[in-house]
């Protein structure tokens, strides 16, 4: 085969590959494959582009270019816009956020004491760290355990700190208090309920199922009504305590039912062999649950727990219906003042974006966890 004399031509080397046709490479190919692949897709693409062009530039213009950050009232905003861009032009009046920012975050908390909730928030992150990251030293968990007491005294005062009334607490601070307390307190209750629901003891199982299905079957708002008008009836005559505490109790009960279902999912996802192996080792119920079952089941259900937290955090806005002043509850009082009467988009957008940032980052975190858990299993 090497050197036949009668072969007319033998290539001495490899012929370089010819370039692919222009339609198969580069941006043109990408456009054809992703945007103009068939008639329907082309129509959809054009429609989307038209929609984006029609919507986005005016929005950017309204929000950023014509937006006003410094003014004393809505009419002040309009004057500034009219002076800068001419009569009849509309722009966002962010001045209301600028002026009421502290109120939306802290409610009517005394402004000279703002350092206390901020410190509590920072400490909360520090207390959460050993729970979220298993690489940190274990003794830090003692700090996490002590944190709730510290946070209570930081926010409400006492022990030498100036006392702050519950009525003064509002804004995002209130949402975070209710959301975080609800989720933390509901975790142990949820675990107990989930184990009870899995139990073979008929009576205990029935109690757990009835509790879970009842709570999950009614809207949170009816439970909040119970907190605001009914909870005092269930306690010995003469007892009465703070509305925020009552709301936190009901929210905790609410969240624990959902938490129980999430953890039950984790328990069910566990391979049956794990239960059998634990039995085969001769572990009793509590030991096998504590050492074998729960660590694995909780790990599987962390994304679900984070999702429950996102849902609960969004649901804290419902407390505005029973008159607590969370960010949503503050909107109408602000809109009712003489200076800001008639303002609409700016306030709602601000609160929506506030919640969106929290919830979106948490949902990304839960997705990241889900991915991480999937690969190492």
């Amino acid at each position, binding site marked *: 085969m090497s050197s036949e004399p009668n072969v007319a031509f033998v290539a001495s080397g490899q012929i370089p590959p010819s370039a692919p046709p222009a339609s198969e490479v580069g941006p043109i190919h990408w456009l054809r*494959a992703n945007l103009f692949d068939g008639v329907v897709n082309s129509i959809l693409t054009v429609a989307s582009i038209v929609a984006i062009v029609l919507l986005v530039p005016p929005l950017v213009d309204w929000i950023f270019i014509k937006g006003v950050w410094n003014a004393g009232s809505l009419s002040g905003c309009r004057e500034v816009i009219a002076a800068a861009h001419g009569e009849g032009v509309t722009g966002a009046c962010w001045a209301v956020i600028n002026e009421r920012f502290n109120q939306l975050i802290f409610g009517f908390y005394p402004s000279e004491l703002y350092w206390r909730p901020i410190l509590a928030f920072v400490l909360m992150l520090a207390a959460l760290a050993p729970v979220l990251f298993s690489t940190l030293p274990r003794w830090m968990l003692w700090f996490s355990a002590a944190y709730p007491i510290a946070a209570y005294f930081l926010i409400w005062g006492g022990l030498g700190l100036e006392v702050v009334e519950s009525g003064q607490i509002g804004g995002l601070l209130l949402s975070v208090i209710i959301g975080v307390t609800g989720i933390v307190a509901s975790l142990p209750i949820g675990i107990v309920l989930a184990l009870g629901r899995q139990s073979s003891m008929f009576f205990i199982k029935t109690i757990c199922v009835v509790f879970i299905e009842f709570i999950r079957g009614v*809207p949170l*708002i009816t439970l909040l*009504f119970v907190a605001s008008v009914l909870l005092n009836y269930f306690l010995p005559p003469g007892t009465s305590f703070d509305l925020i505490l009552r709301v936190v109790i009901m929210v905790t009960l609410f969240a624990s039912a959902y938490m129980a279902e999430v953890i039950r999912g984790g328990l069910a996802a566990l391979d049956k062999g794990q239960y059998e192996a634990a039995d085969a080792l001769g572990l009793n119920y509590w030991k096998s649950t504590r050492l074998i079952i729960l660590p694995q089941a909780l790990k599987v259900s962390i994304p679900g727990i984070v999702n429950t937290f996102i849902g609960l955090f*969004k*649901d804290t*806005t419902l407390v505005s219906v029973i008159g607590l002043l969370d960010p*949503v509850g503050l909107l109408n009082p602000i809109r009712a003042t003489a200076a800001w009467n008639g303002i609409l988009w700016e306030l709602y957008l601000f609160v*929506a974006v506030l919640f*969106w940032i929290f919830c979106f980052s948490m949902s990304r975190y839960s997705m990241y966890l889900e991915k991480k858990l999937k690969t190492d299993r």
Partner: protein
Amino acid sequence: MSVTTEPRQASFRIDMLWTDSRYRSTFLQIIALIAVMLAAFWLVNNVAQNLANLGKDFGFGFMTTPSSYDINQRLIDYTSRSSHSTAAVVGLLNTLLVAVLGCILATFLGVTAGVLRLSKNWIVSRLMTVYIEGVRNVPVLIQILLLSAILDEVLPHPKTAEALLGGFVVPTNRGFYFPIPTFQDGSLYVVLAFIASVIGAIWFGRWATRRQQQTGEHLPVAWIKLGLVAGVTLLTYLVMGLPIGLEYPELKGFNFKGGIYARTSLVALTLALSIYTGAFIAENVRAGIQAVSKGQTEAAFALGLRPSWTMNLIILPQALRVIIPPLISQYLNLTKNSSLALAIGYMDATGTLGGITLNQTGHAFETLMLLMAFYLSISLSISFVMNLYNEQVKLVERTSVAGGGFSVLALFAGVNGKWETLKKGDATMQPNYGVAGWLNLVVLLYGATLVMMLYYLFLDQSEGRDSYYLWGTGKQAITLFLTVFSATAFVTAIFKHYRFIDMAAAELVVFILAVLIGLPFGEMTFGLLDTSVVVFGGLAARLATIGYTVFGARPNVTYFYRVREGSGS
């Protein structure tokens, strides 16, 4: 000679109660029972004391007093002189209205967005991601408030309002006006033709499925069905001389008159809820389609199926198994979230019963109990349906056991073959659907019973009869039980599920109890029939349905999936 040694009788020690597995479960349950009873006693005692201290009494009598408030969006007759219970029913119907409209719209939005998010089209899938992630992470209350405020501010006053979509909707800041269909002579025939063609289409669908299973030939079922329904109905419509028309709303004075009126709060609530829930449904749809492994598509293509058949026969049936359970729980969430109507002044159940009625009468206990019972019954019936569905589409595995506890069927297990769900290994395709057709009669019976019960319980306030809220507790309880069992028997029969017989048997028992305590059944049938006819006819009908389904040919309890052939294994 053998020596038998008695095992040493272990003497009972007190710590064996919580260490020995023979006693532990009973012991723990008794402890739990005592704890729960003590807690319940403590709570009830506190409530009684508190109510006594405040001088309040417990009872539902206030529900019959005039409500003296107005409800501006309603589906049934109501004035401020109507009773609180009628106001509550108006509220419940309003909740259901929002829930039904919202679920339809949310499914439409969600399926569209979920499918488009998987589209190869880069820009469209990104836009859908922006919609889903943007909407999902913002509290629904803010969205409802914002949408309602926008509609109030942006929409024109009725005087300057213009009709959109060829007069089909007139948006104003007072509300939305839609044309209302008017029925003239002969429209009955059009409606009848429509119903008949729908039934015909269903029969045709069954026939086509059977034919496909036997011969493998595939018909364009959807198109033929559509043609059948539309063709027959349109033909009758033309022949009868266009008897059904539309009455458009007209501006008279300062407001529109005529047509269907929907307040802005209703529109805002429905839109906001469906946009929000649609984002969640989109994620479920996407997850469901992605859950079907790619090998299924490839295998279908290898068999030579066309893309559209692959979608309809291979992908969708498997994806639906994943999509439908979370879809139903999204419907449930939407229904529960509709209670936020309170924030924008739409009078749903929370607004009437938990809002104005509570504040006016001060009976917080009773109103909240009723309100919770209402939401609970909705969500329990939805999860009941979901459980039935899950049982039907579940893959049968080694660990699965059909049913548990007592079943009426167990009493008749030997009579005429088995009613069993099957094992995976020894299954073949069941060629037809058993007595499914005859069960439809049962569905009709229970549907009619249910409608009558509900009407009798809540709506009919005739002169000679006390309201439900004034009856004795026993009568109230029996009537409620009868309604609930009719509903469950109705739903299980719709699903052609073997549990239906248990429900029907339980309903029969309650029916007999109701007769014994003298429930006036004659009133229920609008006074058309004598009580004795209703009682004996009802008994006979119930016995006949139960007897028929127990002794007659077995309905195929595994409607969708596969059954074991023969009875041996």
